[in-house]
């Protein structure tokens, strides 16, 4: 009993932190309905700004904190100016990628400026510790509690009682209507970005003091927790962020105490998914939209909004796009089969990787582009295909045909089951739940040691041995196998998209309410899309396992998920040709830019920003 109560207290302590981080996400994603994936990086920069001011400029803590918050707010406005405003006329998914690119630039620059090693952050509140049962609280716990609840109160007042706050909500609900009644929508968006970044920086400084350790990549892990807490509580609700934070904290503590520290995050994310399955709007989320079909979910967005339309509702799919006849694609791919006779091993290796990524990307572009469900789970699905193949081929000696088909089928099944919570949601809530699924998959590869060998990975996967009587051993053969599988993927995807099923997917994406009203079983069709995406991810995973003869969890981390989504959006979402061009560009450019080690990732991100600036609908155009 003492242990259980102590764990509850531990949960409240860490929940405090999550609540504080969640507030910033609620403001930008929930209330202002904007996408800012740089929020986690601004949190990190807030901590580093304060660290620099204290350690190198020797400023007192309070002054350093104020400067850090101001600095982050200014950067937030810069993010809006560089990453969001130029894309106003583009599809709503464009800022998704542009803010992500900015986040990567911030993280990399922080590493260049402050070094990759973690740094110690001063803790002015160290000292008194209060022991309660088998747990303890410190002074900083109370400081965080006061700041979190205080921030929530001030924000709630700001949003409900002041003109800028109301304008922000109005601009979120209907930018055009708000503009017509005289709200300066652009300015309102700027305020939202600045304010959310300031909140992020406050959280960053406090987390710095709390754990006294800061590091350049700290944005992502804390941002994931902040997202989850905000989703859990209801993405549009300030008290929801607090409740979600505490609940997530308590659940993690109990998971750590009674299930195992290694499974702490898996259990926590499963809990978030479970809650969202039962209550898509989150615990304190508004149920007002239920009358409209209730599919808006925790994001609070109207279910009818397509991610491909501009924020004001205009469809952008009619712009120029590259859509060659399928025959042309096949001729190009057939020509690609001849590459081994002109290129050396290095070029083949890179091209082979690009082909495998193109297969996953085609699956992802169907789920995210055609059916409109943005997914960050595809790295996980890719991994499931790879691990299934590795185990079947190595431990059970299966033939390649059997292994590839089984991997594809099993991955499709997992994709369908994992999508059950997300098909009830829309907007960015879908992306966030899929992110949780991707993280669960990665952590499962890492911790299910009996099956996946955990961090050891599976080594010595035998070459693909087809029952038809040939084996794939040389690099040239592996490359050709990847291209043939890619041809299959293109053929399969073209057929499905041209069929009535493909048309229904696009209809759901364009107007989910109308589709529902027309009697289409929307969720069933969305599950089909996820299954199709999973199937292709499984095929790609199979090819990857055979190619590298080694699989380990790192290959299927969140970074891979982000790379895949980047490929799809850069190429032109929903467009098969776009998936091909996107993966050739991302994988190829990344290898080609090996000129500057320190700035390679930054350069790629800047190129991405430029590409989006001039073609927000993707290189080949969204479809």
């Amino acid at each position, binding site marked *: 009993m003492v*242990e259980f109560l*102590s*764990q509850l207290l*531990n949960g409240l*302590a860490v929940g405090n*932190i999550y609540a504080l981080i969640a507030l910033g996400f609620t403001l930008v994603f929930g209330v202002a309905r904007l996408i800012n994936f740089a929020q986690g990086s601004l949190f990190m920069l807030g901590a580093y700004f304060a660290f620099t001011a204290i350690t190198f400029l020797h400023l007192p803590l309070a002054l350093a904190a104020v400067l850090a918050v101001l600095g982050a707010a200014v950067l937030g406005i810069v993010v809006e100016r560089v990453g969001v405003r130029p894309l106003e006329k583009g599809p709503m998914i464009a800022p998704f990628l542009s803010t992500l690119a900015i986040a990567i630039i911030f993280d*990399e620059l922080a*590493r260049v400026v402050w070094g*990759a*090693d*973690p740094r*110690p952050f001063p803790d002015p509140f160290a000292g008194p*510790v209060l*022991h309660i049962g*088998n*747990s*303890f609280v*410190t002074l900083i716990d109370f400081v965080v509690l006061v700041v979190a609840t205080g921030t929530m109160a001030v924000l709630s007042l700001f949003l409900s009682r002041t003109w800028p706050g109301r304008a922000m909500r109005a601009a979120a609900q209907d930018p055009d209507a708000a503009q017509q009644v005289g709200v300066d929508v652009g300015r309102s968006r700027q305020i939202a970005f600045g304010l959310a970044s300031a909140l992020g920086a406050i959280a960053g400084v406090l987390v710095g003091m709390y*754990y*006294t*350790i800061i*590091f350049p*990549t*700290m944005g992502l*892990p804390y941002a994931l927790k902040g997202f989850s807490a905000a989703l859990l509580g209801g993405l549009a609700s300030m008290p929801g962020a607090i409740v979600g934070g505490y609940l997530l904290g308590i659940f*993690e*503590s109990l998971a*750590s105490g009674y299930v195992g*520290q290694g499974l*702490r995050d898996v259990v926590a994310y499963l809990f978030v998914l479970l809650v969202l399955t039962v209550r898509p709007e989150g615990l304190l989320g508004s149920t007002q939209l239920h009358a409209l079909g209730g599919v808006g979910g925790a994001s609070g967005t109207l279910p009818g909004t397509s991610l491909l339309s501009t924020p004001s509702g205009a469809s952008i799919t009619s712009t*120029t796009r*590259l*859509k060659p006849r399928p025959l042309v694609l096949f001729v190009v791919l057939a020509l690609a089969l001849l590459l081994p006779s*002109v*290129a*050396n*091993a*290095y070029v*083949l*290796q*890179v091209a082979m*990787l690009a082909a495998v990524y193109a297969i996953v990307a085609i699956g992802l572009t169907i789920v995210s582009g055609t059916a409109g469900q943005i997914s960050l789970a595809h790295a996980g699905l890719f991994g499931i295909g790879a691990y299934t193949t590795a185990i079947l081929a190595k431990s059970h000696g299966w033939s390649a045909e059997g292994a590839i088909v089984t991997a594809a089928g099993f991955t499709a099944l997992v994709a369908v089951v994992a999508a059950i919570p997300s098909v009830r949601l829309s907007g960015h809530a879908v992306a966030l739940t899929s992110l949780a699924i991707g993280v669960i998959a990665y*952590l499962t590869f890492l911790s299910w040691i009996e099956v996946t060998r955990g961090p*050891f*990975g599976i080594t*010595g996967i035998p070459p693909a041995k087809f029952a038809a009587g040939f084996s794939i051993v040389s*690099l040239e053969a592996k490359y050709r196998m990847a291209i043939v599988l890619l041809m299959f993927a293109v053929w399969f995807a073209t057929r499905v998209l041209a069929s009535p099923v493909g048309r229904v997917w696009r209809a759901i994406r364009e107007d989910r309410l109308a589709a529902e009203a027309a009697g289409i079983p929307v969720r069933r069709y969305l599950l089909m899309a996820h299954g199709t995406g999973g199937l292709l991810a499984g095929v790609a995973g199979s090819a990857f396992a055979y190619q*590298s003869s*080694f699989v*380990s969890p*790192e290959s299927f981390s969140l*970074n891979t998920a982000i790379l895949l989504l980047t490929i799809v959006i850069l190429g032109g979402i929903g467009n098969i040709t776009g998936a091909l*061009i996107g993966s*050739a560009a991302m994988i*190829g450019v990344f290898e*080609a830019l090996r000129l500057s*080690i*320190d700035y390679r990732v930054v350069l790629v991100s800047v190129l991405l920003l430029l590409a989006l600036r001039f073609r927000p609908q993707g290189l*080949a*155009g969204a479809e």
Partner: protein
Amino acid sequence: MHSALRTAGVLLAGLLVFMACSSGAPAAGPGPAATSASCPDANSPIRVGIFQALTGANAFIGAPATDAIKMRLDEVNAAGGISGRKVELDVQDERGDPKEGANLAQRFTSDSSIIAGLGGSTSTVVLAAAPIFTGAKTVLVCATCSHPDVTKNSTYIYRTVNQQAQLAGPYAQFLAERLKAKRIAFLVAADEFSRSNAEQTAAALKAKYPSVQIVLNESVTTDTRDFRPLITKLQSVNPDMVYMILFPAEGAAFVKQVRQSGQNWILDGGPNFNTPVFLELAGEAGNGVYARSFFDPTDQSAKAKAFIAKYQARYSKTPDQWSAFADDAFMVLVSAIKSASTGKCLTRQGVADAFATLPAYDGLTGVKKYIPGTGDIEAAAPSALVVEKGKYRVLGPNEP
């Protein structure tokens, strides 16, 4: 439609041309000449492909490693290079990502001017690269790759670090005999190195010290900072010692929270705590923590002192074990290249053959002597350290 088509076409064509151009390299085949001066490539530099995590989460391993190699390279070249030829590096970033490891392995092995590879900041990157190096009959030396399978089924992969199984005996002995632990809790980072250390040390404890109990065995994911639930759980299983096979940041966070909780467990940080980063992060809370060391930054031996002084002068920071490991790996490779180019023409196969008769190298992190017929070195047990007043002190043979 047409303009879009054209843009995409131009883009793709440009990309292909770029990749084709950037990959070509002059061929330099082995010659029959008997003296190295008359070899066909006697005037061109010897090139080594280095791949390390220079960015990303593993940069804390790869960046100091590469710094150390660059420093040593200048020294080797200042002394006239190897067999009269200058040495050049092709340094590339693998970001701790296995697929980059595989790409770089192809890049190096398909460039015939590169004689051997060195790198892979983690075992998983090495494992992705190893089959490609083996297939191209090119030597790969790795400095931080303790995975049991790294050197399996290949005569081209050589490591300059021990497998965990080789060191499990000394680790177990330290815990059981010198720290006199009876009830040990294991905290294990979720990477291959830590997991392997935990499994092997636990097995050695069970075999040799049956009275020692392992009361808890918990895996800790990267970037975990909140350890209070774990500390509450530890209190209920009541260990007398916690063996933390964690990286410095997680370790420092845990140690600080243990101090706050007021528990008096013996804390042993195993092989990953021996770094100035841990001291800096843990501050006062770090005092009394034990660690194992392959490289001691206060080492007074002549070779260590020279290395530390040079490193400090060049990079204005204290070298850690990652730089020392990489320095040793580079020197082992240099010595193999030297013996492969003495009295004969340097070839990739020659470097691999040289490892069979390579003399033992007494490096910064212990003696590197290859076990005949393998790519593994003989066990070199680490010394033990304790943190006192914010500094490491090497323990005597009968301490504590």
